[in-house]
């Protein structure tokens, strides 16, 4: 697949909640090629500090035919995202992508469970739209957890797509009180059928618990993982994640999250 380096026009860059922003970007070539779960490396500033590009998942692709624009959702967590939050519409931003291996459709139609923790919601609307549009009937359920109610953005969008949405917040300001993973196991035990596929994105400890739960249930899962990275294309070997080696042997093996991921099979990740 060919790698594109393109300047995209910022269409909008607005807060959607405290510390959470969504940015619209116009770049027809990338919009037409990117797949759910893939990401872009964005140069937030043309100067050399901050030096490295920042990885962002594509949140939604606008469904023009062919698509020309898309959206990223990001949380301001450090210097790069602080600078990004100041970017004005009509600015040009350098994008490298589409990158990585994204979500794959399930082998068969059935119960699709998506799990998001905090900004881990970012890649899931694009996936949800793609699955629904492809004619898979579900049923679809989203479990979405955050620190407080303000983190739980774009819930309505999932509901409009036909998802049943279950919420949890650590402070109890919306949905159940506590972590998603604290409630998920009990909730699962009450469901009549097992998920055909679990799609999950969120902080590492959440992903680990999700992987453990699906292992116990014998359910397949695809986890979108996060890692610090420099290049995004598999040359710097920074974004390593301990995984089972491709030959399924016992050797110590680190996968490149940027290439083999960011979406990895839950069963392939070695949790340490």
């Amino acid at each position, binding site marked *: 697949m060919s790698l594109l380096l393109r300047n995209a026009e910022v269409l909008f860059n607005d807060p959607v909640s405290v510390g959470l922003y969504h940015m619209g970007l116009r770049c027809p070539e990338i919009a037409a090629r990117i797949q759910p779960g893939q990401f872009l490396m964005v140069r937030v500033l043309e100067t050399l500090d901050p030096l490295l590009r920042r990885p962002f998942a594509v949140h939604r692709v606008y469904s023009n035919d062919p698509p020309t624009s898309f959206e990223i959702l990001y949380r301001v967590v450090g210097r790069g995202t602080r600078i990004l939050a100041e970017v004005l519409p009509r600015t040009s931003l350098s994008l490298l992508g589409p990158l990585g291996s994204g979500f794959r459709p399930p082998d068969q139609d059935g119960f699709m469970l998506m799990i998001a923790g905090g900004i881990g919601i970012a890649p899931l609307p694009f996936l949800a739209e793609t699955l629904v549009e492809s004619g898979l009937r579900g049923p679809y359920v989203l479990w979405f957890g955050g620190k407080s109610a303000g983190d739980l953005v774009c819930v309505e969008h999932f509901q409009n797509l036909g998802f049943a949405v279950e919420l949890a917040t650590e402070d109890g300001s919306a949905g159940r009180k506590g972590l998603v993973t604290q409630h998920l196991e009990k909730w699962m035990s009450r469901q009549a059928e097992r998920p055909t596929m679990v799609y999950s994105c969120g902080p590492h400890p959440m992903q680990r618990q999700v992987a453990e739960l699906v292992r116990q249930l014998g359910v397949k899962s695809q986890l979108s993982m996060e890692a610090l990275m420099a290049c995004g294309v598999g*040359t*710097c070997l920074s974004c390593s994640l*301990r995984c089972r080696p491709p030959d399924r042997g016992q050797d110590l093996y680190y996968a490149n999250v940027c290439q083999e991921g960011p979406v990895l099979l839950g069963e392939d990740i070695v949790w340490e």
Partner: protein
Amino acid sequence: MHNDESITLAVDLGPLRLKNPVMVASGTFGYGQEYATLVPPERLGAVVVKGISLEPRAGNPPPRIWETCGGMLNSIGLQNVGLRNFLQEKLPWLRPLPVPVVVNLFGNTVEEYGELAAKLNGQDGVNALEINISCPNVKAGGMVFGSDPRMVFRVVSAVRSRTSLPVITKLTPNVTDITITARAAEDAGTDILSLINTVSGMAVDVRNRRPRLANVIGGLSGPAIKPIALRMVWQVVQVAKVPVIGLGGIMTTEDALEFLIVGASAIQVGTANFVNPLVTLEIIAGLETYLRAQGFADIKEVIGTLELSERAAGTF
């Protein structure tokens, strides 16, 4: 004014002839394929591949990277596919390239360096070897060898005696006087020197008081280290009889020119590839523009032409 045809960027690095002085640094360009749709490798002066060891290496545990002001710390630990996979899976793609392919090599022992050199010697598609005795992120070999002039001599000798390919020795900046290790490599028969590898450094997360890198210490690269690299290249070209490749924080044409002016015969671009994958092509075009604007016809008219006042000349 010169037109494009009359501008020449070709440089000679001892036995190695490059059509332009812009190479990529090992570990920042994979095995050439990764960026190929953006940067056709045949447009580069040479391609230097990720360091190869006899056996595959898994590398260091994550986190392996941390961005600092104008730079990045890394501690990859020489993760690589190993010699056999390189020869079977990577080299066939590199072989038809019309530009030199330089294989960066790494061993845990002096003998391993020699064995790698022997096994790469005569491999169709391998045009030169770059000895990595400067990686700060491994426990055996690497910088441990590169900072001790006696070990530098032994490693370079081991490689030299087992190959007829041009040998480049990549030096570490983590020494008091880099001219001593440069001379040791030269005495052992290196054809070319390349410098600098990354500068040892570290960073701490103050919230949990843990190091940012799992390996604690890593190697700093990027524009932050360019003045250090430039100074060391300048020092080495004063004493070296063999050609020098300059690298360390080169981000722009101007950076590349600084290295050439102080006396590097070629340059390598590393971390900048991550920031701007097109940077090598931009530097090649930028060098042509510079030559034309300055009224030069040949890049060799620029190499080693640092202008010093008489007083300054006496102080080095």
